[in-house]
């Protein structure tokens, strides 16, 4: 790991100020992607700004039909939250599949979506649930936030403060887990809202998390697994690697979408 200067702000405004002054900086949230990346010297920021001591970035609240989760809320806090379980149980079930228990004790929601790993789970949840990503500067719709592999709408020094999820009537996530890394080879999050169904896919797309309009249209008319019969995603837009080629991933998108709808309609 390259040397860096460490900063530990206690408020969002202090963190933003530090970010504005520091050259070549990165924020660290749970650190479970950034630290391994720094160890491999794929990242070597001169300044590391730790968001871990900022109390205002944590916590879970429900207001009417919206569930809001602070950016530095750790996965374990989502798992233990009766409010999340009551409002969006699919979010709890998905979080149980992130990493392993030790990783879930450190990893944060804000860190996951700021990183936008093409195999991460939370980007799919945000997209399917039509979440709003709130920063210290503005509110960004999930549709505008995720802009391709490891790329988001965030500007330099912009800090995610919270994520707001409209509460769907039905939702579920189905994940085909890579057995070693536990990332999604393919994960599909399906959510039924009052104005239609949204389907978001992670792990599969060569350009990161994406929605499947054809599935959404079919499921909006008939929210049942059979409605997906005959619908497939284009193989040439899928990732291929030593674990699964593009054709296999394209096939899995259909299978996981079906399973997610089945789980949502059973639940």
């Amino acid at each position, binding site marked *: *790991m*390259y*040397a*860096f*200067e*460490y900063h*530990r702000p206690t408020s969002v405004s202090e963190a933003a100020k530090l970010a504005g002054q520091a050259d070549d900086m990165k924020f*660290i949230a749970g*650190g*479970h992607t950034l*630290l*391994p990346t*720094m*160890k491999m010297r794929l990242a070597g920021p001169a300044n*590391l700004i*730790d968001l*871990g001591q900022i109390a205002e970035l944590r916590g879970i609240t429900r207001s009417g039909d919206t569930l809001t989760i602070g950016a530095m809320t750790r996965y*374990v806090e989502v798992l233990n939250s009766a409010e999340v379980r009551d409002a969006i149980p699919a979010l709890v079930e998905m979080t149980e599949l992130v*990493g*392993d*228990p*030790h*990783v879930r*004790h*450190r990893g944060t929601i804000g860190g996951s979506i700021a990183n936008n790993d093409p195999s991460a789970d939370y980007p799919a949840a945000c997209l399917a649930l039509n979440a709003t990503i709130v920063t210290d500067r503005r509110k960004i719709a999930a549709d505008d936030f995720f802009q391709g592999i490891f790329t988001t709408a965030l500007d330099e020094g912009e800090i995610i403060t919270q994520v707001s999820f409209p509460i769907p009537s039905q939702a579920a996530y189905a994940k085909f887990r890579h057995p*070693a*890394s*536990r990332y999604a080879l393919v994960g599909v999050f399906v959510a039924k809202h009052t104005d239609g169904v949204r389907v978001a896919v992670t792990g599969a797309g060569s350009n990161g998390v994406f929605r499947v309009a054809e599935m959404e249209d079919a499921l909006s008319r008939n929210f049942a697994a059979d409605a997906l019969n005959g619908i497939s995603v284009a193989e040439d837009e899928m990732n291929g690697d030593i674990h699964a080629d593009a054709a296999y991933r394209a096939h899995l998108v259909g299978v996981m979408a079906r399973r997610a709808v089945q789980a949502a309609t059973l639940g």
Partner: protein
Amino acid sequence: MTTVSLTVNGQSVTADVDPRTLLVQFLRDNLRLTGTHVGCDTSQCGACVVHLNGQAVKSCTVLAVQANANIVTTIEGISQGGELHPMQAAFREHHGLQCGYCTPGMIMAAIDIVNRKGNALDEQTIRTELEGNLCRCTGYHNIVKAVAAGAQAMAQTPLRQAAE
């Protein structure tokens, strides 16, 4: 250098560290607590698991400075008065180890499972919950038995959360 102050196994510790020092390096190299192991150094294997504020974490993926003002418990901190923690005793009794390299992390993870899931653990729960800890010797069979027995023993023995 950055000053870090934390509590390790009940003792207050303050040191000046290079900010890139990992928690596991700080424990092993600065404090000479070498019971916590480094296996993969890539957050996969779990040999480095310690408790941070009572929760199991991979100490190869936490900076020592991130643990400032926190409470850390390592494998050295769980026995009391020379008597093994019930989970340690169960690993010995059930031969839950061969080379022993993964054992400190396994035991710290196992205690964390009991803290979260209670004392009556079925095999499936134990296997699922241990997914962040790799053992290349045992095939896990006796580890699973040891965790189940240790979990029960923890209910019977007065809780020895020495440093937590």
